[in-house]
């Protein structure tokens, strides 16, 4: 459903941990059943083996056999997107990965109060009340 993009260093959708997200959402077992059903239907309709489909064959089938794909796409789709777009390799590939000073964070040496400078400059945020 999501192919690799070598130019951007993006893996294909099978390389991210979609199973974990399916399990997290409690639909893993049900998805397996739907996948098996889909595999049978694809073979019956086209004579092709679902596992061995090329990307082009998959694209064509996805357009032509929307009804057959629908249950799987509806279930797997959101989990796949969550797994894919939270994956660090994918995030780096699309330019939203960790940037300095992350992931190490900003090193603060003992006695260095630079980070508190804006607080010092701002002054107190409380006020005294009349007693």
């Amino acid at each position, binding site marked *: 459903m999501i*192919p690799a993009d070598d130019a951007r260093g993006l893996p294909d959708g099978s390389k991210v941990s979609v199973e974990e997200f399916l399990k997290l959402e409690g639909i893993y077992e049900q998805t397996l059943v739907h996948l098996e059903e889909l595999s049978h239907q694809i073979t019956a309709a086209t004579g092709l083996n679902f596992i061995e489909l090329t*990307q082009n064959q*998959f*694209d064509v089938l*996805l357009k032509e056999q929307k009804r057959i794909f629908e249950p799987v796409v509806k279930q797997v*789709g959101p989990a796949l*997107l969550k797994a894919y777009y939270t994956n660090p390799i994918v995030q780096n590939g*699309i330019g*939203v990965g960790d940037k300095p000073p992350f992931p190490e964070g900003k090193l603060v040496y003992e006695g260095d109060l630079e980070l508190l400078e804006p607080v010092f400059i701002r002054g107190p945020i409380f006020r005294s009340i009349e007693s």
Partner: protein
Amino acid sequence: MVGRNLMLHPLGYVEGLFHEDLGSHLGPQGCCIASHEFYETNEDNDFKRGYSFQVLRGPGPLETAMSGVLRREISWGSTHHEDFGRRFGKIASMTTILEDLPDPENRVTLDQTRRDSRGVPAPRVSYSLGVNTKRMLTHALTNGRKLMQAAGAYKSYAFGPIRETGWHLMGTTRMGVDPSTSVVDSFGRSHDVPNLYVADSSVFVTAGAVNPTSTLQAIALRVADGIAHDFGKIGVR
């Protein structure tokens, strides 16, 4: 009177798609540009009061992908990355906050049947959008799309009210001098129950069309000043 005049902040959402990379997925989520151009009552409109616009950060990668797939603008298969690239970082987002009017029929009551483990009745919220608010929403969404188009968006979306947000709870113990039309006095002190103070947005008489935190903080400080002032007298009122 307690529990009546519940006001929320019905929200609309407007999105514009641009050809150029806006880097709109970067930065804090909060409002970066605010407009109060349509905040006040305008007699040319078919509604009273008005709304604000708040420009937000655009969606991150996951939200971009999810909404794109949902709208069938990002497909599965070999064009997925191309479709994604056409949207990611190129979406400007804006929200509109509507000023809800006080309506005694919008209210919080005690549920007659549901109780918590200690036997305390659950709150029951009865609320519906008034005609004024619905008209205001239509106006805001139409204007929001116009704004996006004027800014150069080649496509725009607008929808609302957003069910998941805008739940700023206001108005159910309104402030006032007359006990027959209000619950607390100008220092948040209950008209009916001695030494009971309310120090949050429940005392608002109007909702405004902006986030309520600053106002409710100011009111809380005022109530606190009142309590400090009355401290020695507590029990004798």
